[in-house]
């Protein structure tokens, strides 16, 4: 077996953003289920939250390759 331990670290680091993104979309789905007409408003907010939470995972993969 060869490979970099960085990738194992990245896998662990991706747990946090994974949980975060899951919570964001869970809230988005339940929001739309309760109030379907609010969909267009919630969509932008959900994608914004997704982008901000995902930044952590993305910085992680960047550092996994760089370090």
């Amino acid at each position, binding site marked *: 077996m060869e490979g970099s331990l960085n990738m194992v670290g990245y896998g662990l680091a991706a747990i946090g953003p994974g949980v975060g993104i899951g919570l964001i979309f869970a809230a988005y789905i339940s929001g739309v289920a309760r109030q379907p007409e609010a969909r267009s408003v919630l969509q932008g907010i959900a994608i914004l939250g997704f982008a901000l939470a995902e930044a952590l995972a993305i*910085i992680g993969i960047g550092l996994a390759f760089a370090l």
Partner: protein
Amino acid sequence: MSDRLLAAEAPEEFHAPGPRDFEYPELFGEGTFFTKPMLIVVLGTLAVGLFFYYAARRGSLIPGKLQFAGESAYGFVRNQIAADAIGREGIKYVPYLASLFFFIAVLNIAGIIPVLQFPATSRIAIPLFLAVISWVIFNYMGIKRQGFGGYFKNMMFPPGVPKAIYPLLSPIEFMSTVVFRPITLTLRLTFNMFAGHLVLLLCILGGEYLLFETQGVVGFAAGGISMVFAVIMTFFEGFIQLLQAYVFTLLSAIYIGGALTYEH
């Protein structure tokens, strides 16, 4: 392919794709500096420019097909991004935001177009430069609107916060607004495209290796599954590529909107 089958006598080792696959040689021989990512940037610029040029050339009251497509595309950025994130003033920034969105979208989509098959935005220079332009615009507009002192005062000392929190809050606000915004904009786009291209490379190269270089049913089946996944991931990548163009533009618009509006 026949060479590869002949060479199967001595099975060659599988080389996992890595960052090295993102470095392309010069297209026209050594020392010509023109590489495939550059070609994609040129083609993408031409595609966006020509599309909007021909869509807007003869503006008529009853739009034709091309004009309708151009207007819908432009209207999407105006209504879904600029109007939502900036507000009524957002109209002024639509030309910049639309250029940003379609430039990024086309360069991203190049990652799943046959023959090109490389998202040019996975080279960090392109997102970095776009992020720097957005950074200059929102800081310039903030300083112009609120004054130099006022801009940083509103940024670092937002009203309605207990005074004791300021030593903690102000450095964080300053760093996140001035330093980390362009960095996260750049890294988000770059490494989304980087990771997506890597996954596609892994599915396709790994599938090809399993199909043609290994003996046995298990390897063959695994190669087939890998190839099917490559197709699925290609569609998923297309979705991610459009989404990331949207996210980059939306965040730029939100930063500009945040610099324009402030609490007195």
